[in-house]
């Protein structure tokens, strides 16, 4: 049961990592990188580490996404045309 949960969460993390690296729109890429932190926080809770789960949920999927989006707003670019 635990093995099935960790495998499905891991697959979801890998899929959103693929979306984050290969997408053209930069806002979609940043939000996908925040979703990785969310799934990682659930895996940390399954592996019995509640302090790390709290810190990763607040920092990895909250503040990192907001700081990326603020920097993107300041730059003003939304598309990645170089590939």
């Amino acid at each position: 049961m635990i093995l099935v949960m960790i495998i499905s969460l891991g697959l979801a993390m890998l899929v959103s990592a693929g979306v984050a690296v290969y997408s053209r729109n930069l806002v979609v890429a940043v939000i996908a990188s925040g979703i990785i932190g969310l799934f990682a926080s659930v895996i940390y809770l399954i592996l019995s580490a509640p302090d790390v789960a709290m810190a990763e949920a607040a920092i990895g999927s909250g503040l990192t996404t907001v700081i990326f989006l603020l920097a993107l707003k300041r730059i003003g670019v939304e598309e990645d045309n170089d590939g």
Partner: protein
Amino acid sequence: MVKRLAAVIALGLLALIILPLITDIGPLDELGIAANKYVDMAVKELGVQNVVTAVLVTYRGLDTIGEVAVLFIATTGIGFVLRKKNSRGWKPRKREQSEILHVSGRFLLPIIVIFSIYVFTHGHLSPGGGFQGGVILASSILLLFLSNSLFEVNHDIMRALETIPGFVYVLMGFLGMVLSAGFLDSRLLPLGKTGMLFSAGTIPIIYSLIGLKVGAELSAILDSLGGES
């Protein structure tokens, strides 16, 4: 195309070197020697229920001072790189402010601040601690930025909230060297009864200082980044 192939080959060779690390690590059966001693002595010596807190603040306290220093240097660097000539805070919106955000921001702000104070003062009793509480405090300042377009951070209070806790933290370390067993020893103040809020020596005080300092630094980072382009 050639660059991508070369990158894949280099990563493949790196994976080949790291492969024994995956296959030789079996699942652990029992704790190692250091973890054995920490888990055994955390309640008897220090009176702390959360073993991760005991490891972070007392047994490996120098690493925590180093981390606080790294966060301070990063915040100073960001504030220096992104300084503005005529600082006006966040740019006021051209659109009308959303009424839901305005009202609910004003309602939720004290709840979030009280929750963050709860998290970093109960670090030795339940999961949590200074870093988690500091990040929650910074997210309350973010809510203020998002819901109120005329909000400006008071830089004097931010500076005081960032420098005074750091100074008192190092001072407590030196007091530990004079009055107790060594640098950053937490048995400076009386240990009390395990499980009460005011117990475990200086650990709740140190975590509160760390929580305030980290919250102020992350709010300063958000304030530096959110300006006009």
